[in-house]
């Protein structure tokens, strides 16, 4: 029993964090479609989970979890989870994945539109329990409105496609856990930014963070983050076991709720300035909403948990 990250896992996260601070600052979210991708690729980020035979490092999901949290903390745009986590399990024999030269999109089951499909060189579409892979030239995309300006949605039609002869469940479970890790990172950033604002914004001659009504909301977010994160860590450890799907659902539901709570409290405490397009906060709010719906909504994962825990059929 050693329920904590080791130095290598934390060092990887620290490296990713530094790169994202430099190359994916909040300002870049306004002007660039895919900031920091080149630099992440340079670090080998997209090969972390690929087997060594495919020029990867052959790491396990738990090894990269803190690094994935950092991509959430930075609100990094682009199909990060799809390219760095799903592709290594479904498309490991595609050349140039490790170098980050191939960008992958995913349309998961139960979702109408594919996020970031405009950036994808290859699109994986999962339908009826099986997956098909489609190169960009065979895909037609129609933009559809979503909640997140940096995570655009597209309706997908395609002419030709190749079936993927591997089961997609395990890869989707990993994507769910990875997205949950991003949501935890988002929540941590929302909390941190809001605490910082509450310390400097004054009203009635005092920082608003000295008011108990404000303190207690932030304390509730801190507690929620503190207790959601271990569910995500466990899910990364058990993803290949019998309880993998159940634990992934627990992680995703908890992380989705904590990120949307953190977003709600962040907006409330920032007040009217938070409700403007000018403040960078808007990007994190939108990402909390969009990722909490990705790879299964919170409600869908809760329903799975209900079935697993009480034995009820939905």
């Amino acid at each position, binding site marked *: 029993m050693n*329920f904590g990250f080791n130095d290598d896992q934390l060092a990887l996260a620290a490296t990713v964090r530094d790169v994202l601070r430099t190359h994916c600052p909040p300002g870049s979210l306004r002007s660039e479609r895919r900031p920091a991708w080149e630099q992440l690729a340079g670090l080998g980020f997209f090969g972390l989970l690929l087997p060594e035979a495919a020029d990867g490092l052959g790491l396990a999901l738990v090894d990269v979890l803190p690094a994935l949290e950092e991509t959430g903390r930075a609100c990094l745009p682009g199909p990060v989870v799809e390219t760095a986590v799903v592709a290594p399990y479904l498309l490991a024999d595609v050349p140039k994945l490790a170098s980050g030269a191939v960008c992958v999109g995913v349309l998961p089951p139960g979702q109408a539109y594919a996020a970031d499909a405009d950036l994808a060189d290859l699109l994986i579409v999962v339908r009826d329990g099986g997956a098909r892979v489609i190169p960009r030239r065979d895909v037609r995309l129609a933009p559809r409105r979503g909640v997140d300006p940096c995570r655009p949605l597209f309706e997908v039609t395609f002419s030709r496609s190749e079936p993927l002869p591997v089961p997609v469940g395990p890869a989707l479970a990993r994507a769910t856990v990875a997205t949950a890790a991003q949501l935890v990172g988002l929540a941590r950033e929302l909390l941190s930014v809001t605490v910082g604002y509450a310390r400097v914004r004054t009203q009635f001659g005092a920082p608003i963070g000295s008011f108990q009504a404000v303190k207690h909301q*932030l*304390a509730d977010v*801190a*507690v929620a983050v503190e207790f959601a994160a*271990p569910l995500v*860590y466990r899910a990364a450890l058990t993803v290949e076991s019998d309880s993998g799907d159940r634990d992934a659902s627990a992680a995703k539901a908890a992380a989705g709720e904590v990120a949307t709570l953190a977003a709600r409290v962040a907006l409330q405490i920032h007040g009217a300035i938070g409700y403007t397009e000018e403040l960078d906060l808007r990007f994190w709010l939108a990402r909390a909403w969009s990722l909490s719906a990705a790879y299964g909504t919170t409600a869908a994962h809760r329903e799975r948990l*209900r079935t697993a*825990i*009480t034995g009820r059929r939905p």
Partner: protein
Amino acid sequence: MDLDFSPAERAFRLEVRDWLARHRPPPLPSMDTAEGFAAHRAWEAELAAARLSAVSWPEEYGGRGASLIDWLIFEEEYWAAGCPARVTQNGIFLLAPSLMRYGTPEQRERHLPRMAGGDDVWAQAWSEPEAGSDLAALTSRAEPCPGGWRLYGHKTWSSRAAFATHGFGLFRTSGARHKGLTYFMFPMAGVAVRPIAQLDGLPGFAELRFDGVFTPDSMVLGEVGEGWRIAMATTSSERGLTLRSPGRFLATADRLAELARDADPALADRAARCRIEAEAYQLHTFGTARRLMAGEELGPAASMGKIFWSELDLRMHALALDLLGDRAESWVDGFLFSLAGPIYAGTNEIQRNIVAERVLGLPR
């Protein structure tokens, strides 16, 4: 990172499970009655005979020198087996950590084995009518006399004090707000005890009046004037790991999931959520145990756990009442107890202030 137990830990779990299956008592009468108090003490003595009453204590005091992980395993098995709440908990989980850390060897040898065996049952005497959440405002005082101290004042809401043999708490030894407090242990003989019925009508609380109660020098814990610091270390234990291990909440969540099997989906959903939250607390505690075993202090982070487990416990019992309506018999006691969770060990309002100021760094 892993969630694997070692072969020795798995063997310990099986030993505990087997022992509890053979020795688990039938449901005991409430420990807040004379009859129930005696029955609980007998159960504590039986646990102690198997050296299971305080497994993480050193062997010389009646424990097994077990790790925190072993203790968590013991707790999971204890509550899963449906064993009773611990009448010794104020002593074992609140006083003992302070005795281990600040007590003299003589104090430890004198008190800990008797505490582990249920021979002495300790009540806490923190609160006063005008000093609950604002504990440092307390006015009960201790005056030096030949050989020891005389205690004066008025303490209240003292759990299990109606039947306890000993008490511990803070008394003022000088005027300074925090530095003027000293940590005393005292025998209950000589203290005027007035039982106070709790919401269930039983004398779970008591009011204590001290009119020059003598306690010898050997019952001062730590230095005179150091009581606040020692008490804060104790309350960190209380809010954190030692009083509320995850085993209790996991066992409650399991009973709840069973209860919700045929319930409507909205209620079943709440039950499933409770189970996952109990698991979140369990996992978080494994992480905390790892840090404590590496020598880190729990500190103000204990407040986060206190908020989480007390509100989870309340949600679980409120859901049981929603599921059962007025047939809530076996859940009523737990429900009433869960209502106390956000109040005792420092109200959750105070805990949120601690998290905001000392974890998040917001201004006072």
